[in-house]
């Protein structure tokens, strides 16, 4: 008990190795669930396709995202430009394909960042309770009193625009959810027999928290993770739409929608298509996350009468 909750990184390593077996088991469980649920399976394959599109964007896109064909500006869908062109005559299809990159990078890495910071804090707070728990609880309350888009806006204002800064901004704004998510089940676990047993065997706090409790609460974290990727992608698009996220000429769906709205009288396609790409991507992640949630215990996330246990998904 004398150990400080935030020990040095070296303490976490054996814990991760111990959780690897459990992770494999969970991966297998998830695959079994996906196989049974058609909605989830469709979502899964859409995501897979999207990853391929993002990786092979240079091969798949008919033009470069910044190629300007100024004589063909504001064209509708046609033979040369499948989905039409924007105000500089750039091919919309190519830009949408390239736009999958920032969307996925931001979606995945920002959630990863939030999980890697939020979950350990929540674990320790839920396990140790006491002053640590009170302080984190208070911090979480403060962070949640900003609408998450606003929190993201504030951080982007501090950091400046750019893909990786957007990752940091969205990641930080998602941290409080993961602190809450990890804390609750940890508190429920901390007095169970297997915890007392390992305590009796002389395991330290970090070891108990990371190798014994963590594998038991990983289910809800994965579900929430999938759903927050959807939220993070939407938030990236929102920030870019406001002109504070990914900067032009880099293609991002949010940017493209903004350009589309600015030129809404000249061309409807400019805003329509990137928005569809965005919506279907978010939908795919939600479909998978939703089915996973239905399969695991649904009450793990939506509490019956608890406050604010509704997963917060921002626009």
């Amino acid at each position, binding site marked *: 008990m004398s150990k400080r909750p935030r020990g040095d990184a070296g303490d976490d390593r054996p814990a991760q190795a111990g959780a690897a077996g459990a992770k494999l088991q969970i991966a297998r469980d998830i695959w079994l669930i996906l196989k049974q649920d058609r909605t989830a399976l469709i979502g899964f394959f859409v995501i897979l396709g999207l990853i391929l599109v993002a990786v092979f964007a240079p091969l798949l896109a008919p033009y470069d995202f910044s190629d300007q064909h100024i004589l063909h500006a504001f064209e509708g869908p046609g033979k040369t430009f499948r989905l039409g062109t924007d105000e500089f005559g750039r091919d919309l299809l190519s830009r949408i394909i390239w736009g999958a990159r920032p969307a996925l990078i931001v979606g995945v890495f920002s959630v990863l960042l939030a999980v890697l910071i939020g979950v350990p804090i929540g674990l320790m707070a839920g396990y140790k309770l006491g002053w640590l728990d009170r302080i984190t609880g208070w911090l979480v309350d403060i962070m949640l009193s900003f609408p998450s888009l606003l929190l993201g806006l504030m951080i982007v204002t*501090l950091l400046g625009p750019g893909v990786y800064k957007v990752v940091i901004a969205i990641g930080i704004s998602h941290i409080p959810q993961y602190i809450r998510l990890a804390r609750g089940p940890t508190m429920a676990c901390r007095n169970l027999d297997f915890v007392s047993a390992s305590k009796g065997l002389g395991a330290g706090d970090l070891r108990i928290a990371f190798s014994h409790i963590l594998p038991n609460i990983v289910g809800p974290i994965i579900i929430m993770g999938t759903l927050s990727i959807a939220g993070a992608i939407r938030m990236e698009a*929102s920030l870019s*739409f*406001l002109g504070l996220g990914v900067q032009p000429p880099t293609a991002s769906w949010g940017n493209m929608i903004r350009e589309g709205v600015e030129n809404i009288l000249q061309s409807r396609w400019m805003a329509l298509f990137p928005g569809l790409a965005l*919506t279907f991507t978010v939908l795919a992640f939600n479909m998978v996350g939703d089915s996973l949630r239905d399969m695991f215990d649904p009450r793990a996330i939506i509490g019956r009468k608890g406050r604010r246990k*509704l997963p917060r998904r921002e*626009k």
Partner: protein
Amino acid sequence: MRAYIVKRIISALAIMWAVVTIVFFAMRLVPADPAQVVLGDYASAETLAAFRAEMGLDRPLLVQYFEFLRQLARGDLGRSMITSQPIGRQIWSLFPYTLNLAVFSTLIGSLIGIPLGVWAAIRKNTAVDYVSRIAALAGFSFPAFYLGVLLLMVFSVELGWFPVLHQVRTGSFGEHVQKLVLPALSLGLIQASYVTRLTRSSMLEALNEDWVRTAMAKGVKSRDIYFKHVLKNIMIPVITAIGVYMGTILGGAILTETVFNRPGLGKLLLGAIKQRDYNLIQSGLVVFASIVVFVNLLVDLTYSLFDPRVKYE
């Protein structure tokens, strides 16, 4: 009960204080010098110094901080760095627009979401239920600002029923209503999907309770069971969700106001961020956070109205 209210208000004030502190120091972390940003690269050293003195930027950080707190306590939000207009007046004049938007979207969301959720739960696993679930999932995934863009395309550009730009000019009642419909719909329809889903799942859970079976066995009319007993029981999670969602709507207002070019707090804040008007950003963030804290406080205090079992200790 009174002790609880006092405690709850104190904790809300503590959170507000922390928010103010974080926002204040975060704004000081910005690498750029506000004076340089406002006056431009060619400003002379004297002008820069004069600007800093006028804005109080040359004073020690803690002095600035306590001055800011003192101002806020008096209800003074300071002056804009760029226009030197009092920020309070600016926010106050735009507040009704954002408030209208938030209130009407919430109304649309609740008036569609609650009945639809109840209906879907009562007719579980029928066409109504499936349609409502698909609609809810789609609503989750639709970014509200994109829904706004689509509404704008269909009803303003194609059909011409509404203006493309939603700047409010004359301020007549009719104009206010006309320019509120599409923005409120774009936020409200999305909220409806959240409310539908939550109402449905809470309702289903409540329908499994023993007292529902007892009531049925007693021969209580099913309409009375649904609307008098069950609905009352699920109001707490639903109201909590609607309250919490207020934060999302306020965040979404920034986007919606941008899509529709509608005046409001969100657009004011966004403009401040783009112009790097640090005072305005700071006060704007504080105002947004206070609204959220206030709404959460209200939500907590309304629990007892719906559930007499909630007794605050």
